[in-house]
Every structure is written in structure tokens, then in C-alpha cells.
């Protein structure tokens, strides 16, 4: 069951999750965002782009773990991009080198990268988090990658510092950074590689606006969705999103969904209130 693939070449790589206490080995700040590197060899070895980990908030005040996308993987480390937007995520974002966080993962479906010859990465705000991992894998496979990230303002755009994507375009709602307007408006102004697959992550309104743009160009598109979660493993049905096949769990059926399958509406974005009340 836990066979080492090196010892048993017929054994498929084990993608199953582990639950471990992981030490922060590097912490970089970009305004309200922190890029935490954690020593998590088993998770790093098993993770795929688009997967997430459930992260416990130290201090005992918070019951639920926080789902965080894997920003990237480097050797035995996983990197997590955290935005301090609620009390719990503020604790996580304040993590210092030497602190230990409980991680469970990797969880959820990843982005399917097989056969992808070129990619357009589209993000809104903290939604950018999983796209570095996608870029790293595709660049390693020598596929052209273009990124388009949208932000509210210059403060939110500081998270760009956490990314290394060679061709990255930026828009902001207030025009303080990059092109003024939404990220979908930005897409019309950039060169998209032929036959690019679109990988997106961001607020519901962005995904809703992106879906027709992608469909109109006949591209394949996938979005990684955010949701409030409790279990992260498909038990509680707390994190569902409407799809053409009915409600589906972001944690277990996603977080990656084909844009075609989503019942997108520019409705309320549950990610804007991380903790209520």
C-alpha cells in the first residue's frame, strides 16, 4: 500500500494524502500575503498542480482547517500563498520560520496537464496561488505559458512578487498597476498562444466572466474553485458548487472543474468573507 515506486516499478505513484506537522523553513512577505515554504517531503513527492492541503491554524482558537492551494513544490518543500483576510488566515500569514503547521494533503483533483501544448493562466487576486505550480510543470515540459492576473489595487497586486512567470500581464480595477479593468478585459489585449488551454482560479465573478470568453475562442478551460470547507475530504458536503450535473463538492469532486461544467453566475463570492461573523 505504501510501496516505494522505486522498489516496485509496477506500482503507480501514490497520490494519497498524509497528515503531518510541517515546519516552516522560509517565510516571505508581500504586503498582506505570505509565501510560506514548509518541509513536507511526502506531500511534495505526491502533489500535483491544482491540489490543496488542509492547514490547521495554530493557537487553538479555530476549529476548522483552512484549504490552501499548493503554490508550488520545490524538492521536499511545498509552498503556500496565504492572504491575511480573516482572523484565521491572519494567524497563518504571520507564520515564522521554525513554526509548525498541521498539514493534510495533497487533496482534491489537480489540473490535467497531459497533452497540454500551451497555456493561458488566468487569476483574480489570491486565486493566483495554484498557478505557479502549473507554470513550473509546463515550462519544464517546454510548453509556452502566458499569465494574466487581475487585482483590485496595487496593494493586492503585491502578491505578484510571489510568482516567477516569464510572460505575466497584470490588470487592476483602479488602474494603479498594469492595465485598468478586469482580467478578462486584459485577455483581449494580449497574445494568447495558439491552442492554449486555460487554467483559471479566482472569484466566482471572474470565473463567470471568463467562461464565455474561453468558449467563444473554442479553447479548453479549467477553473480551480475556492469554497468554505470543513472536512476537505468529501464527507460534509459543505463546499458544494452548482454544476450542470447538480451540486458538486469542491474538495472531493474538484477543486478543478471544466469551465463547461460549471453553472457560473456572477453572484456572491463566498471567499470574500472567510470567517463569519
Amino acid at each position, binding site marked *: 500500500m505504501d510501496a516505494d515506486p522505486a522498489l516496485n516499478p509496477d506500482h503507480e505513484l501514490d497520490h494519497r494524502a498524509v497528515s503531518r506537522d510541517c515546519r516552516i523553513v522560509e517565510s516571505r512577505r508581500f504586503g498582506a500575503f505570505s509565501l510560506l515554504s514548509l518541509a513536507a517531503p511526502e506531500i511534495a513527492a505526491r502533489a500535483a498542480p491544482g491540489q490543496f492541503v488542509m492547514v*490547521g491554524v495554530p493557537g487553538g482558537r479555530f*476549529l476548522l482547517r483552512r484549504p490552501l492551494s499548493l503554490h508550488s513544490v520545490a524538492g521536499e518543500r511545498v509552498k503556500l500563498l496565504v492572504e491575511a483576510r480573516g482572523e484565521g488566515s491572519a494567524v497563518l500569514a504571520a507564520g515564522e520560520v521554525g513554526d509548525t503547521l*498541521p498539514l*493534510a494533503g495533497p487533496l482534491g483533483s489537480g489540473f490535467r496537464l497531459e497533452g497540454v501544448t500551451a497555456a493561458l493562466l488566468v487569476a483574480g487576486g489570491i486565486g493566483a496561488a495554484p498557478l505557479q505550480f502549473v507554470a513550473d510543470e509546463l515550462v519544464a515540459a517546454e510548453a509556452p505559458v502566458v499569465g494574466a492576473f487581475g487585482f483590485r489595487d496595487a496593494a493586492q497586486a503585491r502578491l505578484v512578487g510571489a510568482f516567477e512567470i516569464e510572460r505575466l500581464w497584470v490588470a487592476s480595477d483602479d488602474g494603479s498597476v498594469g492595465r485598468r479593468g478586469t482580467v478578462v478585459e486584459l485577455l483581449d489585449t494580449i497574445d494568447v498562444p495558439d491552442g492554449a488551454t486555460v487554467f483559471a482560479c479566482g472569484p466566482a465573478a471572474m470565473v463567470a466572466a471568463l467562461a464565455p470568453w474561453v468558449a467563444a475562442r473554442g479553447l479548453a478551460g479549467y477553473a480551480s474553485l475556492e*469554497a*468554505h470547507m470543513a472536512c476537505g*475530504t*468529501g464527507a460534509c*458536503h459543505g463546499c*458544494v458548487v452548482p454544476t450542470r450535473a447538480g451540486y458538486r463538492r469542491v474538495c472531493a469532486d474538484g477543486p478543478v472543474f471544466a469551465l463547461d461544467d460549471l453553472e457560473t453566475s456572477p453572484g456572491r463570492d463566498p471567499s470574500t468573507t472567510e470567517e463569519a461573523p
Partner: protein
Amino acid sequence: MSTAERERGGLEPDLSVELGPMRLPHPVLNASGTFDLLEAAARYEGDLVAEFPFAAYVPKTVTLEPREGNPPPRITETPAGMINSVGLQNPGLDAYLPDLARLAALAAPVIVNVGGSRPHDFVAVVERLEEWLEAGRPGERPDVPAYELNVSCPNVATGLAIGADAAATADLVGRVKAVTRRFLMVKLTPNVTSVVEVALAAEAAGADGLSLVNTFKALVLDGETLRPFLGGVTGGLCGPAIKPLALRMVAEVAGAVRVPVVGMGGIVSGRDALEFIACGATAVQVGAANFAGIDAPRRIVAELDNEMRRRGLAGLAAVRGRAALPQRARSGRES
């Protein structure tokens, strides 16, 4: 062996309990809807089926027909707890049975949790389950010694939760009791004036056990818009915030009925579990704590073992009911 010897660790505490026909190695069960064994086993390394951490497994509520559930958002954290408004999303009995069959390899007993919005639906589900369980060849069916009725769903006829009405609860229990000889537990809702009144009615109608409490009806607002946050508007509150409320109700019910009581509500530690047993519970269920980590049940059982060693307790019977309420406080009616 003397108490002093026990305190030195000379005695292995016996955590086993008997719950109706079930002899369980320890008293910690999962609460329905908070732990999905098949999903967890498919995701986590190790073999959660072979090394099942709970004493018995309570799957998510099954209803006769599929239920889509409530619109999102369905869940959020609250101070010392969480609120949910899932709306019993489930694929219905037909799609549930294959998953139940996959639990045949589980050594622990399975307590099938059944929901519905009218008595007929509960009866139909239990009848179908009885046929299905009897039809299985050896090794094809899990060990299902018990049912747990989830009576918190609103009754289509009245709009009220069946479990909020003592007479409706008794009627339901009587009808289900007529179609099964298995151990029948009723999971009581705390959203009543007197949980004891409903408990006594269920017992009188033939319930073999009672589990409590389900979640407390509650409201959370979106802090920005000041409108209800949940898609289902109101939701059920659980987690450590409700533990004192749950302890009070468990003590009231355990003091009033003869059938075994399974206590739950905000248990996150072995000490919490022991407190419910001190209030008269035979066993306990762990719910929201499962969301804090896959390791929660093992940790809670280990902590319970430590609590017993520290106190020099040989078995749970020594503390069960220690926190029994004085007679005048048992009615459950507020003064």
C-alpha cells in the same frame, strides 16, 4: 488492585461499552455526516477500513429519494464552532446501497442513519434496508446491528421537524419499530422546549436508544452585507460552543430514561468524552472535531484512556452518571 497501583499505571483501563447488541472496544463513534469512511480511505494513506478508529461507523443520513441539498454557501466557522446548512444532500437509497455493501470488509458495526420528511419515507427506507441486509450472502453485507433515525428534517405535512414534536416522534418510532428488530436509536434535536418530553415519548414508543444532541438552529450574518450568510439562511451550530448545552440535555435525558443514551455536542478531547459519560451517556459521537484533522478519533480515544489512568479508573461505569442532575432539574422545563 489498589487505587494507588492503578495510578501507577498497573491497570489497563477497560474502555469497552455495551450499546444494545453492540459490544464496543471503546465508546467513541462518529457523528453522522462528519466522517465518510469510503472517501477518507480513498484519500489517505494507510488502511482506514482495517484500522478503523471509531468503535462503530455512522454513515451520512440516507433518505428514500435523492436530495440535492441547500444552496451554497453551506458552512462557515463561528466562535468555538461552526454552522452548517447542508440540507441532507445525499444520492438516495438506491445509490446508497452499493456504498453500504463496500463496508462489508469493516470489522466495526455500522449504524445506518436514516432521514426523511414523512414517516412513510423512514419506514420505506428501513423496509428496503431489511430486505437488502437479509438478501446478502456471507461477506456481502456489513454488520448493521442498529439504526439511528435523524428526525431533524422538517415534516412535509407540518413544516416542523418531526423531532420537535413528541407525538410525531412517538408515531414515527412505533412505525419503524414495526418493520425492524434491530436496535433503534433516535437522534434528538435540541431545538425544543423540553428534550426530555421527546425522549420519553420516543422511549415509550419503543426506541431502544437515544442519541443527542443534533445541531442547534442558528443564524450567521455576512459581516459586510449584514444579510444571512448561508444559502439555507439558518443552519445548525455545532462544535465546542454547544458542549455545555449538550451536556445539560444529555444529563436531563439520561436521568429520565432507561434506554442507553449516546451523547454528542462539541467533543474535541478525551476529557470532553468523559464528561458526557459522567452525564450518563453510554457512548459518545464525535462530529465537528473530525474536521480538525483525520487523527481526531485516535487522539480522543488515547486521551480518554489517559484520563482514566490518571484517575485510576478501571472502567467507564465508575464515572457514568456521576454528574446526574438533582431530581428537580431533570424535567428539562425552564423555570
